[in-house]
C-alpha cells in the first residue's frame, strides 16, 4: 500500500466514523434533504472562499451555517413549505456558486473535483484536517447524545424537561455543515449526503437501540470506504463515486439479509 492510498484510507475511515452517529440523526430527523441543501451551498462557499482567499473548508462551513440560519429565519415566516424552501436555497446557492466560479479561469478551478471529489488532490494537511474535524464531530455528538436523542423523540417534551432545543438544532446543523466541508475532497459535494444517509439506513435493520444503530452506521461506512477505495484502484474509477456505490450495494445487501 503506498502512502497516498494510506492517507486516503485514513481520511475516509475518520470521515465514515464521524458520519455514523451524525447520519443516524439525519435519518431520524428526516434531514436528508437538508443535508443535500447544505452540500449544494458548499459550492457557493467554495467560490466565495476563492474570491476572498479563504480556506475552502472554512468557507464551506461558514456558508453552510449561514444557510442554516437563513433557513430557520425563513421557516419562521412560513411562507412556503420547508421542502420547497430547501429546494429554493439548494439550487439558488448551487447556481450562484457556478456563476461565481465561471469568473475564474479553468486553470484554477476544477469543477468536477468539487462536485465529485478528487482524492488525488488530497494532501497530508487535508488528512490531518479531516481526522481532526471528524474527531471534533464525534466528541460533540457523543457529549450531546442524550439531549439530541430526547429532542429527536419529542421536541416539546424535551423542552419541557429543560433541554435547550434551539441551541441543539443549531449545533446539529453546524456539525452537518462541518462534515460537508470535510468530505468535499473525498466524495464531492453532490455525493456527501450519501455518506450520512446510506450507512445509517443500512444499520437500521440490525439495531435494537439508537446507540447500536449509530455504531453500526460507522462500521458500515468504514466498510464502504474500504471497499470503495479497494475497488477504485483496479477498476480505475473515481474514488468518491465508487465509495458511494459500495455503500449503496451494502444497503441492498442488508435488505436481503435482514434478521427481523
Amino acid at each position, binding site marked *: 500500500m503506498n502512502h497516498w492510498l494510506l492517507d486516503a484510507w485514513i481520511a475516509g475511515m475518520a470521515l465514515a466514523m464521524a458520519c455514523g452517529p451524525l447520519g443516524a440523526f439525519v435519518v431520524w*430527523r428526516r434531514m436528508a434533504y437538508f443535508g443535500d441543501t447544505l452540500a449544494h451551498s458548499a459550492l457557493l462557499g467554495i467560490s466565495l472562499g476563492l474570491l476572498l482567499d479563504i480556506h475552502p473548508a472554512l468557507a464551506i462551513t461558514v456558508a453552510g451555517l449561514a444557510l442554516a440560519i437563513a433557513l430557520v429565519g425563513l421557516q419562521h415566516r412560513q411562507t412556503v413549505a420547508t421542502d420547497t424552501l430547501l429546494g429554493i436555497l439548494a439550487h439558488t446557492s448551487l447556481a450562484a456558486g457556478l456563476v461565481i466560479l465561471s469568473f475564474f479561469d479553468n486553470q484554477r478551478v476544477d469543477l468536477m473535483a468539487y462536485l465529485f471529489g478528487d482524492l488525488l488532490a488530497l494532501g497530508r494537511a487535508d488528512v490531518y484536517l479531516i481526522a481532526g474535524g471528524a474527531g471534533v464531530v464525534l466528541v460533540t455528538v457523543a457529549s450531546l447524545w*442524550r439531549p439530541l436523542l430526547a429532542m*429527536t*423523540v*419529542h421536541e416539546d417534551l424535551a423542552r*419541557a424537561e429543560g433541554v435547550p432545543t434551539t441551541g441543539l438544532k443549531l449545533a446539529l446543523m453546524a456539525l452537518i455543515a462541518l462534515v460537508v466541508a470535510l468530505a468535499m475532497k473525498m466524495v464531492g459535494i453532490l455525493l456527501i449526503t450519501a455518506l450520512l444517509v446510506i450507512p445509517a439506513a443500512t444499520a437500521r435493520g440490525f439495531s*435494537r*437501540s439508537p446507540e447500536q*444503530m449509530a455504531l453500526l452506521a460507522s462500521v458500515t461506512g468504514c466498510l464502504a470506504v474500504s471497499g470503495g477505495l479497494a475497488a477504485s484502484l483496479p477498476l480505475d474509477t473515481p474514488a468518491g463515486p465508487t465509495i458511494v456505490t459500495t455503500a449503496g450495494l451494502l444497503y441492498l445487501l442488508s435488505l436481503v439479509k435482514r434478521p427481523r
Partner: protein
Amino acid sequence: MNNALVSAHELVYAQQGRALIQRIHLDIHAGEIVSLIGPNGAGKTTLIKLLLGLLSPAEGRIDRRADLRVGYMPQRFHVDPNLPLQVSRFMQLTSRDSAAIDHALRRTGALPLMSHPLQGLSGGEFQRVLLARALLRKPNLLVLDEPAQGVDIKGQAAFYRLIAELRDELHCGVLLVSHDLHLVMASSDRVICLNQHICCEGTPDAVSTNPAYLELFGEPALEGLGVYTHHHDHHHNLHGDTVPDAHSHHAGCNHS
C-alpha cells in the same frame, strides 16, 4: 398571593394575527384535578404550552410556585420507525435512575413493556408509558394532553381512575385536556370549558348544565366533532343488553 402551583393572569396569545388565547385567568392547586375541555382549535394545547413555558404569551403573566415540578405528557405522538427505541431507553431520556424507572412503569402497569420497541405499542400501552415518563420527574403538577387518546372506551375509564389515584398518592395538581366532558366528569374536581376564552368553569355537574357549555357542545356543535363523538348505533335495554337501533339495520331486512 395565593398558594397555587401555577397561576395565569390575563393571558393572551396570538399567531399570525389570530387570537388563540384571550384573557385567560387560571389557578391550579395541589391535589385538584382540573380538566380543560373544548372543541378542536379551542386553544387547549396552546394554553398548556403557555403554562409549560413552551410558548411565550403576547400579554399577561404566568406565576409558577418556586418548588414547581411539572410532569408533562404530550399528546400521543409518532416515533420515526427508523429510530430503534425500546421503552426502557425512552424512559432513560428523562432519568437514568433504573429503580425509579421500574417504579414508574410498574405504577402505570407498563412494566412488562420495558424491552418492547416504542413503535409496536398499542394506543393504551403507549399512553401508560408516556404517563410513567411524566411520573419520573416526581412532579407536583401533572400536565396531561389528551391522556386517554387511542385508548379503548373501557380502558379510558380505568386510565382516568389511575390518574385520580396518582393525584391522591402524590398529592399533585393535575391539569388534563379532553375533548369530551363525559369522559372526565367522574374524575375532575373542576372543569374549564375553553373556546379561545374561558366560556364557563366549575364543577363537572355545573358545567354540564351551563348554557355556554351547551351552546358549545350542544347537538349542532357535536356534528362538527364527528371524530371524537361516537354516535351510538344501539340502545341498552333494562337488562343492559344491547338493542340495535332500527336505522342501523340493512334496508332489505324484514323484522316483523
